[in-house]
């Protein structure tokens, strides 16, 4: 292998002192997010080369959380655009503040300035009457982290529109001209894969599929996020969740459910998991009646006992 080429390229948005994915991983960990090497590399590239990050994975594996953590690491505001069916440009990009424009018009009229129509019109289409929705807000805030959450819920026309904004980070308002981002925001796009997102959007991004964490990482995540949990409880809960995931469930529990469960157990004053407690708090892990029934059939007690014996 050739020796490493000297690395002194532009840093992009990388925080000072971070020169490789491992450094970023460590920084994310300081802020409470335990990323695997793949996710750390993806974030590193996204920050360094100003490209959006496209994250897919089961619900509750930490897709939204990484955007929040990146915002903390960069000490930048997180601007969130939650997608839903029927979302359009006026909800995502900008909208004119019609009532205020109207008020302004009336005020001008009252002041007897109605004669100068051109000047009045120019005043009406001023930046101060423009309501910045998340996409425009992210372009105007430097630095910022833009989270486009659950893009698969929006219609595919919206995707094409998003593509346009994300490819050159400019927005053209016909009455005002083109608004450009000085430094493009860090963009994190997430999808639960309820439908296939168009390839053109994915091509512009770094794609990463987030899996459920393995046992050790999950224990570490629980310990980090729920500090009140003892090492024993964290290990037992993580082991039980890992076993539940191996079962044939409609909705295998994600990390979010693991954390919920741990918090529920702590709220009940438990310092270790047992069959009784597990049965009582199963609702924080399994959220389908069929899954709960299945877990009951599997005998939660035995499952927990095995998890406690094996994992604790």
């Amino acid at each position: 292998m050739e020796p490493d080429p000297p690395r002194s390229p532009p840093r992009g948005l990388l925080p000072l002192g971070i020169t490789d994915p491992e450094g970023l991983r460590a920084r994310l960990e300081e802020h409470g997010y335990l990323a695997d090497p793949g996710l750390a590399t993806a974030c590193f590239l996204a920050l360094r080369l100003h490209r959006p990050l496209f994250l897919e994975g089961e619900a509750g594996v930490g897709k939204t959380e990484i955007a929040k953590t990146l915002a903390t690491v960069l000490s930048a505001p997180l601007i969130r655009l939650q997608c839903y069916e029927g979302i359009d440009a006026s909800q995502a990009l900008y909208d004119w503040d019609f009532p205020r424009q109207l008020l302004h018009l009336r005020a001008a009229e009252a002041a007897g300035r109605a004669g100068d129509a051109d000047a009045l019109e120019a005043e009406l289409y001023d930046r101060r009457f423009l309501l910045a929705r998340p996409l425009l807000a992210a372009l105007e805030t430097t630095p910022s982290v833009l989270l486009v959450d659950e893009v698969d819920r929006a219609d595919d026309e919206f995707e094409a529109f998003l593509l346009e904004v994300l490819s050159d980070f400019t927005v053209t308002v016909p009455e005002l001209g083109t608004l450009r981002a000085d430094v493009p925001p860090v963009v994190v796009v997430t999808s639960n894969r309820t439908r296939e997102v168009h390839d053109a959007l994915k091509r512009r991004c770094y794609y990463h599929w987030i899996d459920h964490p393995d046992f050790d990482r999950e224990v570490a995540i629980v310990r980090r996020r729920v500090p009140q949990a003892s090492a024993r409880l964290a290990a037992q809960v993580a082991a039980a969740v890992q076993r539940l995931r191996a079962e044939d469930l409609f909705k295998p529990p994600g990390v979010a459910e693991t954390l919920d469960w741990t918090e529920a157990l702590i709220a009940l004053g438990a310092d270790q998991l047992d069959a009784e407690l597990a049965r009582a708090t199963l609702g924080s892990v399994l959220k389908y009646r069929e899954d709960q029934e299945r877990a009951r059939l599997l005998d939660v007690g035995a499952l927990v006992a095995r998890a406690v014996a094996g994992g604790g």
Partner: protein
Amino acid sequence: MPVAGPEIAATRRDATAGTVGFSRTLRAAGLAVTTDRIQRLVEAMAALDPGRRDDVYWAGRLTVCAGPDDVPRYDAAFAAYFAGATSGQPRRAPLVRPASVPVGVEAPLADPGDPEGDEEVPAVAASASAVEVLRQRDIATLQGAERELLQRLLAVFDLPGEQRRSRRYRPAHRGRIDRARTVRELLHGGGEPVRLQYERHRHRPRRVVLLVDVSGSMSAYADALLRFAHAATRRRDVPTEVFTIGTRLTRVTREMAHRDSRTALAAAATAVPDWSGGTRLGVLLKEFLDRWGQRGVARGAIVVVLSDGWERGDAGLLGAQMERLSRLAHRVVWANPRKGHPGYAPLAAGMAAALPYVDDFVEGHSLAALEQLAKVVAARA
């Protein structure tokens, strides 16, 4: 400040040459490696450490993969390329897909004993797999003038979806007041009250999901049904998903997207590994619901099962999954070619178990029957 010295330029050239070779392997493995993706890959390599195997692995995976199904293919291609095998790659992804644990990475993300990878690529090996006929079906070899005519008729087939009310509004003459448009109108008139503007909910077609049975018992119909599916997919305004079921579940929506029906069917024939094998409807329906349906593909959709209901597995499982499907989907339509035969009764165990959860049970054996099916899908029957 960084000036690219000659050695850096040389490294970059080597890296580029290597990347092109690598991307050829990836393309052979069935990944959509476009020129802009290669460019992105080279950029990513330059930002990372091309001397580290992990960095090369992630640079490629982050830029080339477009879905969890791509990851095992990528892993296989990566392992093959960096083991020195640059040629003689199989044309397609391996038929037995490995679980989504990266291969050839020093630090695997998941414990190999960890079964969580299963939910993405469920192991679907079962009894019928043993007799699975993994052969490539050449759809072009269809005989008879009748077949040709049928193909031509199917090519101009139209499958409009049932309408549903969307959250969006469109301008209308009656309905609720469109405030934004009214105010805009007002501004035009210099603030003078003008006519109120109205808006109504827009209507959009529901998604149509076709599950086409390509097992042995359906082999006489599979071609025609896939042509029907292709015609349905071609309507861009109706979101359509096509899956084939046999001994495996295969999503062929992407293959069906070719405009030309011959190309589309040839692509589907390559993608589907289990032509004329057995049927495991229950297991595959479950896989469909787990991997696609529950997440949204089946939600509020019109799900059309094109099958004879011949189940080799447990009919009870099929019943349970049909119940689940009927709760997710807006409507479940079952088209059974056998129903068109005189004296047919739904006695096959699978069909009998599924029937209580089917909203419309139609025939599917002739062109007329398929036209009827299209009407049922559009709720115009």
